């Protein structure tokens, strides 16, 4: 059976969490207190992560379909698996369209969106055909570059002269209400999206350390998101950060150091490209696996090929433009994620009670 190491799992989680979130100012509704929203949501997300990592402890090396079949029975498990597969497909269309549109906007403005999306998907289908091992190994190679570039971007912003920490003051100036309002959204996106890893846990070679690796990876990625949020607000100010389409790009464009370090938007594009690719790939792989199990097959290659080649059309059909995608994603999408992120909590309770009563 194909397996991934803990380092590869760590790399997958970090890239998945950082993925599209560097493009948004998370918790922007709380304006200058957005970083507090991220911090509180991170603490709350530990409960969700505990639930997600508790399930494989009861069923080590068993896939999500087998777990559902065992605890709910086939009749209840199949429709749930179908819903999860559709949810993963929906998330992959979101990520896929968003990154295609952003790449088109920033790097390839004269290339039709469909061409950009197909260039993306051909590579993705190829990697996913090779399996989770290749996905894990490739991100293991890219992650140090991603980290280096992110840290360089934050550092250059801090020394650029535009960095004003006073933009973050006063802390909780508008009370705690705006912070509380934003917390459910940020718990859903990006932390609740970790639910996709339920279909991946069984590939990890040593099942014992899954929780530890997940907690470390989420802590590292939250630290990065927190710095990103502080940098965005300190450089752009709370108002501009909230209204900006891609705060990362705006922030990078404001760096001018000695006429040498300037026009650094290419750094932003690199971060978008790596993050977007892997986030879409993980969601799409989650869909392919769930759909394959639903059809009682063992090889996901046919699903990856057929739906992979249809994914650009599905994405373009679902979203008219980037504003439309943001509207559907940020208005209703986050609550949708929250629903699917909380379902495993009930599943875990069923598993626990069932095991207790059978003893």
């Amino acid at each position, binding site marked *: 059976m194909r397996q991934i190491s803990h380092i590869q799992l760590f790399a997958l989680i970090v890239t998945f969490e950082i993925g599209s979130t560097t493009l948004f100012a998370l918790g922007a509704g709380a304006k200058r207190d957005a970083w507090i929203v991220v911090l509180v949501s991170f603490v709350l997300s530990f409960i969700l992560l505990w639930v997600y990592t508790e399930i494989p402890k009861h069923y080590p090396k068993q896939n999500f379909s087998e777990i559902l079949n065992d605890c*709910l029975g086939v009749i*209840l498990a199949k*429709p*749930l698996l179908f*819903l999860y597969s*559709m*949810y993963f497909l*929906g998330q992959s269309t979101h990520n896929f369209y968003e990154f295609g549109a952003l790449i088109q906007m920033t790097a390839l403005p004269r290339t039709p969106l469909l061409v950009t999306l197909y260039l993306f998907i051909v590579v993705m289908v190829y990697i996913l055909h090779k399996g989770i091992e290749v996905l894990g190994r490739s991100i293991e190679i890219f992650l140090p570059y991603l980290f280096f570039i992110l840290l360089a971007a934050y550092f250059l912003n801090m020394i650029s002269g535009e960095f004003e920490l006073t933009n973050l003051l006063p802390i909780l100036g508008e009370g705690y209400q705006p912070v*509380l*309002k934003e917390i*459910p959204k940020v718990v859903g996106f990006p932390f609740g999206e970790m639910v996709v890893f339920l279909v991946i846990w069984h590939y990890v070679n040593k099942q014992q350390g899954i929780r530890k690796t997940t907690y470390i990876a989420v802590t590292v990625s939250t630290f990065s998101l927190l710095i990103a949020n502080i940098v965005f607000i300190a450089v752009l100010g709370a108002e501009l950060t909230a209204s900006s389409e891609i705060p990362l790009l705006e922030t990078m464009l404001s760096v001018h150091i000695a006429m040498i370090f300037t026009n650094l938007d290419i750094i932003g594009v690199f971060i978008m490209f790596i993050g977007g690719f892997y986030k879409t790939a993980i969601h799409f792989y989650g869909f392919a696996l769930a759909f394959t199990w639903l059809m009682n097959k063992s090889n996901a290659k046919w699903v990856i090929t057929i739906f992979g080649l249809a994914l650009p059309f599905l994405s373009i059909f*679902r979203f008219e433009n980037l504003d*439309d995608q943001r*509207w*559907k994603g940020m*208005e*209703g*999408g986050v*609550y*949708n994620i929250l*629903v*699917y992120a*909380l*379902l495993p909590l*009930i*599943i875990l*309770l*069923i598993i626990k*009670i*069932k095991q*207790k*009563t059978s003893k």
Partner: protein
Amino acid sequence: MIPMPITMELLKADPFLGFLLFGGLAYAVILLLVLIYYIFKGIFR
């Protein structure tokens, strides 16, 4: 207080989202019923 900005306009514009949202909520209710069943089964065993 959690704001719920899910409007009819949004659900009409994205029926797929509506399907996922209501499907997920319906399943949450079903799973809660299953959970209650197992709790009672444990109590009255």
